[in-house]
């Protein structure tokens, strides 16, 4: 890709990320929801990793080494929710 083309794609991603930040602020006042907000944040993050950090230009072996391991750890962290819902309803620990 030429330097001009690269600059154009950088600027496009920059504008899209800022626009998505604006969408999040709009959502905060009109339709707040954890899942919706996190989906928008995830889109921003994917754009940043692929275009700003240039992971899309690296070898696929690097992507395969980094992404599944990180996602696995983050997905496993979701096991905390059951306990936090138990707390809010003041339920005792199961016997």
């Amino acid at each position, binding site marked *: 890709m030429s*330097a001009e083309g*690269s*600059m154009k794609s*950088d*600027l496009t991603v*920059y504008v899209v*990320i*800022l626009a998505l*930040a*604006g969408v*999040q*602020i709009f*959502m*905060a*006042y009109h339709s*707040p929801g*954890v899942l919706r*907000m*996190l989906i*928008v*944040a995830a889109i*921003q*993050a994917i754009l*940043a*990793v692929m275009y*700003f*950090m240039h992971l899309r230009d*690296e*070898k696929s*072996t*690097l992507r395969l*080494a*980094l992404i599944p*391991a*990180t996602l696995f*750890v*983050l997905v496993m*962290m*979701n096991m*905390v*929710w059951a*306990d*936090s*819902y138990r*707390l*809010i309803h003041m339920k005792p620990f199961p016997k």
Partner: protein
Amino acid sequence: MSEANLTLEHGAGVMEERPFAIPSKKLVMWLFIISDACTFGATLFAYGYVRNAAPDWPHHFETASIINVAIMTFVLVTSSLTMLIGTRAAKAGDKSRALRFTFITVALGLVFAGLHLREWASMIGAGVNLFQNPWGAPLFGASFFGVTGLHLLHVVSGAIALTVVGLGYKRGRYNGDDIEIWSLYWHFVDLVWMFVVPMVYLLNVAQ
């Protein structure tokens, strides 16, 4: 040329190629970034846990706070763009442009830190601290300062690291690869902010 580079160059014919086709120090930065992503993930999950389990979690962020956060987001994302321009210039061998944009990035990082500290000061002035807050759940302060403090620490560390690498690049101690590697860290700090904003601020807007 460093001793390590000399060794690699001399051994190029007999050594295996790098499995990921990137310099070792860039791989190390990627490994640091994924471990740091897990650290931030754990912090945000802990924040979500406490928020979910507290029935009186405060929704107190007024429009002025949200405008401040929007400006902070604009500054940080713009700093990522200036870092990109600096990195491209460094890779192309344009030293003065690379340095100019690297130090613009550092300046934007410091503006971000200043805006953040101003917000912290207003919250501390309103009575929020690590152990209590006047609006409800006592753990709000610890969670808020914990998450945003960890991020702010990364911004300040990144600004210091970029300054050191930029000055080293100017003196010829570091090269374009080093600028690129530290730009990865800076973009990561930007990326984390994209999750901090909705979790900490936008889901707690005063309606």
